[in-house]
């Protein structure tokens, strides 16, 4: 059996795009946004429908997402993957696509997502009706926010983390968003604004929570060989890993340690890299606590030290570590499942196409996806041509 390390550098992202973002208005469906993003990503790659032989997707809006999308676009794939691990799904799709391409199961993979949750309902639309008994919902938590709040409260209790530390994350995201014309929220935001905003589920305020927007996006992935002949500089897959330990937050043994500690360590090992090698970081910031937990779990700082690590604008433009350079789920876009946007922004940074928010000499990017209640964690490392 081959070792997974053999996947390093064998596949590349050759096209990325977002659909229309923000509030697309009535009369636009989730599938419209998926198709729009997918079409634009193929245009970006200089490929057409006939080149695509694998489809990867997940949706909270309709069943059989790859089958539905393939019919819409006239794709007849020989490989189809609807892995559904919440917001992390699309990073799992990236790993699965890389393995499938290397194994010869397909050659050109389309990974696509879209949601019109803001225009359709104004609130989070989460995946799949659950017909199982719940050992959590009878107690009226506000899910998902209360699950993340329970992790935040425990982190504060155990490590002395403060609401100000959480607010640093929101302010840094906003400062990056101000450099991104596609971001939904670009107004001034201060630490005091965050601290003074409406409490949703203690210790998290409305400014500690991600946006509710419409939006979608897509990636095109193919073999490194084929990528060389395409129009965009290839962004290589260096390694990726998936982990999940629980569904409901009450079943995570230590709510201050997520399965990102496993996915991160594995992804770094596969890529032959360390956190200090990463130039630009995209973390799934559905809530401000996520960024703290993932910085620790992925090894950028020690467990319990993320509060100090993010202080004094350390994650903002010009700071210690460029995190969520698009503005993140907190200020740029969050249509319900944010994962694909961590990959899209990573690719843009590594291609040097990020405009005012471009990180100088970005060669290695880390994209990290989260799904459920801190449940599913997927880490992907990407690199430019100098890394392979």
């Amino acid at each position, binding site marked *: 059996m081959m070792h997974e390390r053999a996947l390093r550098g064998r596949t590349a992202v050759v096209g990325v795009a977002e659909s229309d973002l923000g509030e697309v208005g009535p009369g636009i469906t989730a599938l419209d946004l998926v198709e729009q993003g997918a079409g634009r990503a193929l245009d970006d790659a200089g490929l057409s429908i006939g080149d695509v032989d694998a489809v990867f997707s997940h949706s909270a809006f309709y069943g059989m997402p790859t089958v539905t999308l393939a019919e819409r676009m006239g794709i007849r794939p020989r490989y189809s993957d609807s892995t559904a691990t919440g917001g992390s799904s699309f990073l799992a799709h990236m790993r699965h696509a890389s393995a499938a391409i290397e194994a010869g199961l397909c050659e050109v993979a389309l990974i696509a997502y879209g949601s019109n949750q803001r225009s359709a309902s104004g609130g989070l639309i989460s995946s799949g009706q659950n017909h199982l008994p719940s050992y959590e919902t009878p107690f009226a938590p506000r899910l998902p926010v209360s699950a993340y709040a329970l992790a935040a409260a425990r982190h504060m209790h155990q490590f002395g983390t403060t609401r100000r530390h959480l607010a640093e994350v929101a302010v840094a995201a906003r400062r990056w968003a101000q450099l991104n014309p596609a971001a939904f929220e670009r107004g001034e935001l201060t630490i005091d604004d965050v601290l003074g905003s409406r409490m949703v*589920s*203690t210790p998290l305020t409305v400014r500690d929570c991600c946006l509710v927007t419409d939006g979608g996006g897509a990636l095109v992935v193919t073999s490194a060989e084929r990528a060389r002949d395409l129009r965009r500089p290839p962004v290589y897959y260096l390694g990726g890993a998936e982990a999940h330990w629980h569904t409901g*937050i009450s*079943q995570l043994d230590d709510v201050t340690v997520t399965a990102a500690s496993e996915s991160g360590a594995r992804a770094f090992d596969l890529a032959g890299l360390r956190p200090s090698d990463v130039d630009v970081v995209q973390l799934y910031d559905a809530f401000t606590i996520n960024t703290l937990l993932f910085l620790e779990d992925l090894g950028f700082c020690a467990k319990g030290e993320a509060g100090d690590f993010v202080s004094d604008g350390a994650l903002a433009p010009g700071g210690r570590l460029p995190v969520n350079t698009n503005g993140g789920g907190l200020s740029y876009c969050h249509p319900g499942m944010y994962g694909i946007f961590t990959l899209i922004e990573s690719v843009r940074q590594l291609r040097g196409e990020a405009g005012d928010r471009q990180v100088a000499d970005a060669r290695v990017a880390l994209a990290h996806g989260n799904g459920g209640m801190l449940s599913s964690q997927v880490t992907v490392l990407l690199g430019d041509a100098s890394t392979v």
Partner: protein
Amino acid sequence: MSAEIPGRAVELCIEDGGPHATYQALLEQHVLAFQACSGCLSAIFPPRLRCPRCGADLLTWRASAGRGAVYSSTVIAPRGQEPYAVVLIDLDEGYRMMSRIDDDAVAIGDRVVVAPARAGSETIPLFAVEGARR
């Protein structure tokens, strides 16, 4: 952990349906039930068919004393409603569950005790801070 099965053995009067149906039927009798693995002696919650720690098909129903400590807490204050705390509780028998405490001053580490309450057509295991007036 002492080498004995946690909790008190439950005399089951109801043995129809799956693990959740059994748990709920016991709750209706104000028994806060969990399962213990006779193989590895772990306390298991929520209820299921096999031990998720060792895989053994040896789960027995036990009654919790309904006491524990708050592991984490978040307060929610819906418009026009009294604020309440959604909590994670570490039960003394060695398992964790989510519950609600109708007291927004509850703190991590507080000792709590079960206070079953009606919610629609079912009983749910709310908790209260130990020694607090109900």
